[in-house]
């Protein structure tokens, strides 16, 4: 059975005038994207990578100079009206009118999309309950906390029960508590039937936690795509770390050498404690063997940890530079 794609984009190109004699900025440079229906897809990349531009093209706001994109089965350029009926878009800014209450904002959004007064009121009530807006629902939106406002933005995106929801940087600027709460909300959305979520973020952790699949975007194209685990497993194995107590470095080294599947073992000794760090294709498989070998050699040890490569490592490998460096460069460029 063929896979249903909620988003299917090929070779998107978008340029913006550079201005003042500067060359044009190529925001998208042949970007491809395929998002199966009902999944959460993360567009991950540093600032200025082209994530937001991709979202604008897919939500019919911006037009690509080249390439084609279908969203919910319709072409974004030729059938924009049909796409707009089937999507929700939560932009980086707020989508809400600050002088209206959340309830009024939700009802107006529903009515603009053709709901009757009664249906709009009912839908607003439903979303207010669902997002736990509670008494904030009848206060002016400008008076709400950042986290509550962001929830309202997402609720506004869901007013017309879209098939595809686009979230552009949903947690940027939120405090850790509000971010955790937003993550829980997005996970809940992802569990709903037939809702596809396309999420842009420059937080590696966010993509790792929420997305079924991730496309890493850099300089207007997707450099690599796959599930977070798949991507991380393309890097050679895990890192195994064992805390040691009063270690005999040679004994530890020879014990480590006896364990199959453990490479690049390094022993650090710092006074009474030390650390064994090694690479392994599959950390969980060697943990028991390492512990047994250390015990046989009479080496006392503390915590044993296996760490998976992070998406940061993946980004470094595919984009050829580290995340923080890329973010810093784009901030520089923006200046």
């Amino acid at each position: 059975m063929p896979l249903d794609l909620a988003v299917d984009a090929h070779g998107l190109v978008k340029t913006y005038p550079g201005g003042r004699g500067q060359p044009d900025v190529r925001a998208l440079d042949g970007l491809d994207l395929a998002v199966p229906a009902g999944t959460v897809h993360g567009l991950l990349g540093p600032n200025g990578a082209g994530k937001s531009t991709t979202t604008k093209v897919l939500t019919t706001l911006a037009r690509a100079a080249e390439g084609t994109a279908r969203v919910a089965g319709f072409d974004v350029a030729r059938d924009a009206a049909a796409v707009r009926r089937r999507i929700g878009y939560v932009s980086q800014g707020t989508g809400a009118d600050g002088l209206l209450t959340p309830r009024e904002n939700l009802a107006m959004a529903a009515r603009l999309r053709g709901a009757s007064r009664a249906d709009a009121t009912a839908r607003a009530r439903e979303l207010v309950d669902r997002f736990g807006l509670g008494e904030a629902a009848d206060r002016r939106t400008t008076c709400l906390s950042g986290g509550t406002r962001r929830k309202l933005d997402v609720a506004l995106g869901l007013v017309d029960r879209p098939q595809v929801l686009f979230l552009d940087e949903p947690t940027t600027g939120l405090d850790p508590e509000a971010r955790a709460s937003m993550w829980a909300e997005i996970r809940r959305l992802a569990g709903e039937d037939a809702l596809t979520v396309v999420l842009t973020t420059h937080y590696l952790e966010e993509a790792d936690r929420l997305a079924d699949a991730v496309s890493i975007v850099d300089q207007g194209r997707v450099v690599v795509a796959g599930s977070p685990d798949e991507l991380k497993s393309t890097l050679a194995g895990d890192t195994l770390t064992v805390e040691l107590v009063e270690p005999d470095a040679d004994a530890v080294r020879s014990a480590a050498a006896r364990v199959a599947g453990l490479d690049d073992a390094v022993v650090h000794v710092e006074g009474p404690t030390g650390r064994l760090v090694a690479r392994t294709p599959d950390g969980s498989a060697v943990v028991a063997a390492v512990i047994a070998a250390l015990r046989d050699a009479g080496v006392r040890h503390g915590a044993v940890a296996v760490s998976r490569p992070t998406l940061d490592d993946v980004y470094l490998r595919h984009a050829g530079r580290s995340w923080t460096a890329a973010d810093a460069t784009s901030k520089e460029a923006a200046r």
Partner: protein
Amino acid sequence: MSTATLDRTTAPAPTTARDASWPAQVAHVSWRWFVNLLRQPWGLGVAIVQPVIWIVLFGNVFSAVGDLPGFGGADYLTFLVPGIVMMTVLYSGAWAGTGFIDDIRSGVMDRLLSSPVHRSALVTGQLVQQLAVSLVQGVCVIGIGWLAGARYDGGLVGMAVALGVSLLLAAAFCSLSAAVALLARDQTALIGISTIIVLPATFVSTALMPPALLPSWVETAARYNPLTWATEAARTAMSTDVDWGLVGTRSLWLAVLAALVAWWSVHAMHAYQRSL
């Protein structure tokens, strides 16, 4: 292609069976701007107080104009009221575009443009609210003028015609402000451009002075000023001896102008989207 896109027939339908009609969209958009207006009592207060100040100020400062030989012996305040009605409309209309700039900055515009809402409904909905404000302002100016001693021989018909003409002028200027806002997307630019247009337009017109008292080049320039068209149509409509030909031609010119600028503002909305 190895994969199929979503089958249209099996895709779940949105909540709403079909889009809201154009008039319904206009009504919802203007409702939003009305609520916005009422929740900013300062803006509403200024919109009413400003024309009052003008009547008092110009009525007193220029009251001697009525005694000048070129004026023809009429009461200056009665002469002034139609001019102040049109000036009021011009000055509040110049601000009409600020709402769009706020929407562009906040992100509301992007949400609206990615939903199935007509671009022309977004522009028209805001215009409806602006016209309602202009109408209230016009009624206030006429009322305050009457309390201050101005008399309108044209009666209720004359006043209604004057208000109608003021709405045509308002439609043209609000649309102009909206178009500039959508093209410039910058508050400072909008205020700058508005000031450059509005202030000379006020003085190069017959809103405050009869043509006979204007320098000849100003009098010539004033003939092409929409503010002059509106003021003269309203002035004759509110007088004893109504020149319906003047009312008709000036209203027609204003209507054509308003239609052209309104079309331009919708075009500007599309231009904004193309810039994204």
